[in-house]
């Protein structure tokens, strides 16, 4: 399975919480869901914390359109 995007991970995490909160999941499933949820939570946190903001300038391709 490829790494989910942040949005996919967040959506899956919230679906898991809904399932858990419905109280319908049997214990085995609940524990698996919890584990998976924690994994997704860590993944999302890491994405947010490790993503480094970058400001780049697009110079090369717009050369002709740049002010002299």
């Amino acid at each position, binding site marked *: 399975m490829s790494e989910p995007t942040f949005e996919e991970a967040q959506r899956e995490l919230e679906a898991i919480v809904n399932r858990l909160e419905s*109280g319908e999941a049997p214990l085995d499933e609940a524990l698996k869901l919890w584990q998976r949820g924690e994994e997704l939570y860590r993944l999302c946190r890491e994405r947010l914390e490790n993503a480094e903001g970058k400001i780049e300038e697009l110079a090369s391709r717009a050369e002709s359109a740049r002010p002299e």
Partner: protein
Amino acid sequence: MGAFNRGIASWLGRLPTVWVEGEITELRRQARWASVFFTLKDPADGSCLSVSMPRGQFDAVGGSVADGDRVHVYGRPELFAARGEFRLRALSLEQFGLGDHLAALERLKQKLAAEGLFAAERKRALPRFPRKIGLVTGNDAAAKRDVLTAIQSRFPPASVLVAETYVQGPRAAGAVIETLGALCREEDVDVIVVARGGGSFEDLLPFSDERLVRAIAACPVPVVTAVGHEQDMPLCDLAADARASTPSVAGRLVVPDLNELLARLDRARSGLERGARRALERERQRLDRTHDRLGRAPRLLVERSRHRLEQSAGRLRALSPKATLARGYAIVRSGDEIVRSGSAVEPGERVDVELAEGGFGARVEEAR
């Protein structure tokens, strides 16, 4: 040949003076020249007309005229006989008035609206989590800074690709179109912001240029525009997927709020824990109940056995001869044998009589 040119010139000289409308390009004005030269261009089809105008008159009416301006020129066609060049000799010049611009804009707006370019169903949703944000802006520091500040304060991990270009003057529309295209060719650009600070009506005209409006509508990546101030409504705003009243608002539109995102994640996580704990608690209670029942089971079994035993004992007692004796019956024995018939004994024979309480010995008087 000279006569030919003079003949043409004199024939042209008989034409009436006319008003011509066009866009000024290649304006050449020098203090030592008696005339100012420029070319009038028809923006619709690109056709050109050379114009000359006495410098004094030009300065009097058109001192602020620059390349790219739309003007009305009042003049007479003439042949510059010495070089055989045809041109318009301008006597007067009027800048294309606000009213003319507004009317032209309104016509363009109607036309594009009729094509469905501004339709709500064409608008695309902005990505919630763009990998990279393209920013088209002038080297005008304020708009660029406002967008970047808004993006970075709301979502520090955002990546922005800034493309500076002309946002004013006759080259602006083309330059913005080219820059949009360049950003779209970059990888991971999921949304593009076109930001330009406030300016005069004329300053913002390039953002109503038909080519630019079409380019924004056709842009493969969703576009947010923040052009001019709240009350300005350049046509590019109508074609964009989202319109922001200021560059800061545009910045906030294209990124999620990091704090809110983190809070939401944390809420999800505590929900996760709560949910799992609840499932665990439920199972534990069920196990407790089962265990209790297990504990009660042997005692229940003993109770049941005792009950059955007592029932059996009752029935046993009911069957014992003691109970019969208690009701007043007696057992008569001769030796070890129980006497069941009169013929079993002889008169004078000794018998034992057993009663509920004790007994006695007796002699048979008579047998029947």
